[in-house]
């Protein structure tokens, strides 16, 4: 696995750049990750998604899909497309410091 430097820290990522170590993430890093992919400001709504993804990952051991964030996390799919435009599933996972979801839906 490659190690990259983000916000002056060494971070373990996979070949696509997604974080591989749950504990290396913190909120400051999330802000930098978001800026890296064109989301300059993380609003409360963004944080709601990120917080759900992190806690769901701890319980389930895998990244929640868009549908799971909508049905279990209670955040409507339409909002996810507004918060993380075009490719919400991958973008929200990246900012939350998780791997992209494995599930299809």
């Amino acid at each position, binding site marked *: *696995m*490659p*190690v*990259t*430097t*983000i916000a002056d820290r*060494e971070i*373990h*990522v996979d*070949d*696509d*750049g*997604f974080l591989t*170590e749950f504990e290396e993430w913190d909120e400051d890093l999330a802000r930098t990750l978001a800026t*890296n*992919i*064109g989301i300059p400001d993380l609003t409360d709504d963004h944080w709601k998604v990120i917080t759900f993804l992190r806690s769901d990952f701890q319980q389930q051991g895998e990244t929640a899909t*868009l*549908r*799971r964030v*909508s*049905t279990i996390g209670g955040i*409507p*799919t*339409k909002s996810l*497309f507004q918060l993380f*435009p*075009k*490719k*919400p*599933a*991958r*973008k929200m996972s*990246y900012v939350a410091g998780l791997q992209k979801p494995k*599930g*299809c*839906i």
Partner: protein
Amino acid sequence: MTTMETAPSIVPDFGDEDSDRKIAFVCSKGSLDMAYPALVMASGALEHGIETHIFFTFWGMDMINKKTMGNLHFSPVGNPATHMPAALAPLPGMQAMATKQMKKTLEELEIPDVPSFLEHLSDMGCKMWACQMSVDMFNLTKEEMYDQLDGILNVTDFIEIIDGAQTMLI
């Protein structure tokens, strides 16, 4: 954790530049096992930021007919992939049992039923169209069909809309 290499900055490429890629599915079947492939693939395409259209025609109308959309069936008859002896498949109750089993498996995988799946796709921006000829054939009204349909199109209009799309007939 083994450090194999150090790269200055690896940021995923989300390919955000405007793409004119389009995908269209033509759903012409009304059985449970033929409904899901298009729905799942459409979901994947939409998650990937691709303009996605679904055109419902012939038996595919069952997927958007409010009377049938929540109650599609799966039949093992004539389907060697069920690995069931061919003589057993047509027995009474077999279709109901196979349908129940498939629905249970889908539910366990947290895959929504057809009406919820359509709503999920609408929320993601999927365009859904009913075939004018099929609407006439089955004598359906707008009120009898899925509420979030984008419209009823004749085939010429649909072909025009999906200009340049990768198209799949299911």
